Structure formats: C-alpha cells, structure tokens
C-alpha cells in the first residue's frame, strides 16, 4: 500500500481578483522505500505539491492519504502530529537553527518529547552521516554538505515513513550533491520513501522513478492520455502557474 498518496488534488490560489490553479488534479502515490523525483519548470506547482504532501497546506479539492488514511480536513494540531510522526523535511537552504550545535539541531523535532533516548539517536544518526566529529559544531562552522547532512539527520530523528526534500542539492556542488543523494538511497533501503522536488537532472541517476509536472499536471499522466479527469478549465488555464507570488520561490535556478 502506498505510504503517501494524492487523489485528484487541485490547489487554487486567489491572488487579487484572479484565481490561479497551481495543481489541476494530481494522482500520485509513493510506496515505502521508493525514491521518486518530481521535476518540472518554475511555476509548475512542484513546491505546492510538496506542501500538500507534507501536510503544510490543504488542497482545494481532492484528498491526501497518509498510510491509506485521509488527512485532509484535519485540525492544525492533528496535522502537526501526523507530520511529526510520518514525515521528515529537507530544505534547499538547510534551515538549521544557527544558535544550536549539530547534535542539538538534530534533536530539535523531539525537543518537547521528554525522551531520554533522543540524544543517543541523534548521535547515532550523525555518525551514520559521517559527522561523528562535528557533533558540537554550530552550523556556521560546517560546510554546505555537512549542513545538509545534519538536516537529513534531523529529518530522520522521529523515524518518519516519508522524507520530503525540496531541492536538496540546490545549494551544493556536484560532488557533495552526489554524496547527499547516496545518503537518500541509503535511507530508502530502510523502507523510508524519499520524494525529492528538483531541477537537478543529477538526481535522476539515483531515483527509482521520475515524475514530471507541467503547468499543474503530472507529465506521465498528461491530459492527452485521458487518464486524469480534466479539471474545470479556468480562464487562465493556459497561463503558466504562479511565478511571482513566491509559492514556487524555491524553484530558483
């Protein structure tokens, strides 16, 4: 059974008087342990999809299923709890907390758990990422690749089922990028699904499958195949998705 799934998901944004349809009916499912990349040009709705998968946002229509359970329409508290239980995040800009050491950063998601094993797990994870020597370094004392590894360790601390990565190699050089992607492959071997949203063709050397997103539609389920029910066309259906409203801001070159 798919660990995470979307069914006919539509996401509309209202900007000024206009309604922009960022996603126009997406059917998408990922199995446990699968490594999937979502590719597409700027404004194709990649980040919007990732936000929906990560329960950071609610779809306008359709369902998001986590372990077969519909999670749309949950309260903020329930969504946050589900996110903590099931989903790990890795960001292009790492988003480590500058005042905390590597070890503390990894412990952050479990900070309020009063769990005595957190510290040991965090050290284990960092050692697995080859950062055993860097436990007490602050983020500004780490290289980009090291920071991303700390971020990956952080995303794994609560033993998620799915890891969502937004341009994970976007701020890294090619060699470092490869190493990070190898880490992802390692992670999928432990039955954690990895979904990476990216521009970087390099990612495709490592993934099990790639889906393409164009103008809010999934490339392999293009409207031409007729499999996706055509969403009600909006007046600006031919206009590329939102580009300047910041929603897809992480799709930078």
């Amino acid at each position: 059974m798919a660990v995470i799934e979307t069914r006919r998901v539509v996401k509309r944004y209202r900007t000024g008087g206009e309604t922009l349809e960022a996603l126009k009916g997406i059917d998408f499912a990922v199995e446990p342990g699968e490594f999937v990349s979502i590719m597409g040009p700027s404004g194709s709705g990649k980040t919007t999809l990732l936000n929906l998968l990560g329960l950071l946002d609610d779809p306008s229509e359709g369902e998001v299923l986590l372990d077969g359970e519909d999670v749309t329409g949950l309260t903020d508290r329930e969504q946050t709890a589900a996110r903590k239980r099931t989903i790990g995040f890795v960001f292009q800009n790492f988003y480590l907390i500058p005042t905390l050491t590597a070890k503390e950063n990894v412990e952050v998601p479990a900070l309020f758990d009063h769990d005595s094993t957190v510290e040991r797990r965090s050290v284990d994870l960092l050692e697995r990422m080859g950062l055993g020597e860097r436990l007490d370094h602050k983020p500004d004392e780490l290289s980009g690749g090291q920071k991303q590894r700390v971020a990956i360790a952080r995303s794994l601390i609560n033993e998620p089922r799915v890891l969502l990565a937004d341009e994970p190699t976007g701020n890294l050089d090619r060699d470092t990028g490869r190493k990070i992607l190898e880490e992802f492959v390692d992670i999928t071997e432990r039955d954690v699904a990895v979904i990476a949203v990216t521009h970087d063709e390099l990612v495709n050397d490592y993934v099990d499958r790639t889906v393409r997103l164009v103008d809010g539609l999934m490339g392999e389920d293009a409207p031409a195949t007729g499999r996706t029910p055509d969403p009600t066309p909006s007046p600006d259906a031919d206009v590329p998705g939102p580009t300047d409203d910041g929603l897809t801001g992480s799709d930078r070159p």
Partner: protein
Amino acid sequence: MGWLRRRFPALLMARRNIGRTKVRSVLAALGIVIGVIAIASLGMFGLTLRYQLSQNLGDIGNQVMVMPADSEGAPDTLSERDLRQIESVAGSGATVAPAVQRFTTVSYGRGVSETRAVMGIDQPSKLFEARDGSIPDPYRSGALIGPNLADQRDLGPGDTIAVNGSTVRVVAVLSPSQGFGFTDPSNQIVLPTRSFDTRGYDTITVTETDSTAANATAMAIRAQLNERRERVTVRDFSSVADQIGQSFQALNLFLIGIGSISLLVAGVSILNVMLMSTVERRQEIGVLRAVGFQKLDVLKIMLSEAVLLGIIGGLVGAGFSIVAGLVLNHFVVGDATLVLRPGNFLYIGLAFAFGVGTSLLSGLYPAWKAANERPVEALRS
C-alpha cells in the same frame, strides 16, 4: 542545568536566542532592570520615610486628654471622682496624669518677667523626663522647666525663678518631646499642685501603650462620663494617626505608580525586540512547525524568551535595589542594615514580579503571532 533543560526544553532555545543578539537583549533587559529599581527603591523610599517619621513621632497618638466640657452648666473643673472613673476605664498599662493650668506672672530675675501658663502636676514623671537634674519623687517643691525655655533664659538646675511673687528653685530641665502628645514640654513651667490654691483638675492626660488602646479608652471615657450630660471633652489622636497612615499609603502608591511607568516603557521595548525577533526568525519558526512543533510549543519558546529576559532583568534590578536601599537607609535613617526590614523585601519582590509580569505580557503578542504563522507562508524564501 541539564535537569532544567530536560524539564523546560523551550529554555534551551530561548537562552541561545537571547545570546544571539546580545546587545539587543541586554538593552531590553536593561529596561526591566531600571523599572524594577524604580519600583523597588521608590517603594523602599516611602517605607523608609514612614519609618523615620514614626520614629520621630514616637508612639504616635497614644495619649488621650480629658477636659471639662464647654457646654452650659457643666462644671469647669474635673473632680476627684472623675479622676477615679477615668483611672478605672484606662487600660492596665496606662498612666493617668491629672494636672492644673494657671496663667500667672513669672519673672526670671534681672527684671525680666512675663505672664504665661504654668502647669501644676503631682507626678510629673508620668508625662516628662528630665534632661538636666532629676524629677523629685514624691514631688513637693521646686520647678521643672522646658528645654527651650531653659536655653532661652539661660536657666539650669539650682537657678531660681519667681512665680506669682514667690521664689522657686529650678530642680530639673525637661527632655524635649520624643513624639507628639498634648503636653509639649519645650516651654513648660511645672510646679507641684500644692503650689496652687485650687480644687479639681483642668486636664487629665491618659497615656496608653499605643493609639488603638488610646482610641478605645477615649470611647470608654466618653461613654462613662458623658452618659447623662456633656460633662467632659475627650480628645485623642486616633483620627490624626489614621490620616497620617493613609497619607503615607497614598504617597507610596503614587511613588510606585511613577516607577511603574518605567516598567511600561521596558515592556514596550521587550515587545519591540520580540517582534523584530519573530520577523527575523520567521523561516526558523516555519521549520519548527514543519518538523512537528505544535503552535503551543512555538508559543512556549517565544514566551520563555521574554520571561527569561524579564527574570534576568528582574534579578539584576533586585540586586541594585538592595544596594539602593542600603544607601537610602544609610542617609535617611543613618542605619544601612535597616534595608533588611521585611517590608523592603516585599517591595523588591513586588518589583521583581512586576518586571517578570511585564515581560510575559509583552511577549504574549509576538509569541502568539509567531505561533499562528502558517508554516507554508513562513517557509517561502
């Protein structure tokens, strides 16, 4: 520290964040320091003034004075019977001193004379103490004179004055008043009652242990002696004592009110710092929400930060307040250790609590704002 961290994980983040913008945090805490010092030291100042005044006033208002009433048909002196009745209603610790008062000519030698009041009393030690010489007991002869009069006329024990033509030897100079009562010794001339050819008394002064007892005695005397008709006028200081107490209460509240303004300013500065901090850390807070922090968790972190600033500022402020209190007491009362009076710690505690409370209140809005930011919006870069 490790225990604290496990118990209040939000403190870890809060402490590091305060350390991140040191100058800004120090300035924000400084506001609280100043506010706490202002409230605590103004409160202590009021208390010290009150203490000093009550020292000067002595056992303020513990005397009751009974005089013949002014009303028509009332006797113009107090009788032995009145005296016995008053003695019976006065408290066990009280002293009852009957006295007579006459206007007569007094000459101090070298042709200097004047017409003035002279007091007759049998047991002057009930009302007065001697500065020079001693008050004879029993008191049968000789004059006691007030300290101001003695200094003015250059008199001392052994000198003589003439009262109503007869020469009297001065046996003692009285001590200045310790508090305030109905009979101020400073310009008195006191003679034994037998020097006056009179029956009855003009005044009976009851000295109680404190003003509450004095008030009760005054009421009892009124009830007993004025039962059928208005025979005596009874005066006590209870209302004066109450008024003085109330004035000080008002003064203290006013001073603390002034101090509170500085805390208000401090609160605004913390609000500002926290708001800036939430704007700067928007993405960071977004990440926290994304990795599974509930709104309440974010709220806790931000509030701990504000409260931590308040506690640091409050502690430093309390420390400085004690120093300020030492200085204050040293100069006003002359005894720096008086800062250790419990009332002072009440004010320091109050100021500290106000400081922390202000920080908490100022932190509420920024914390609420941070907690309610949607992670999707916050994570847009």
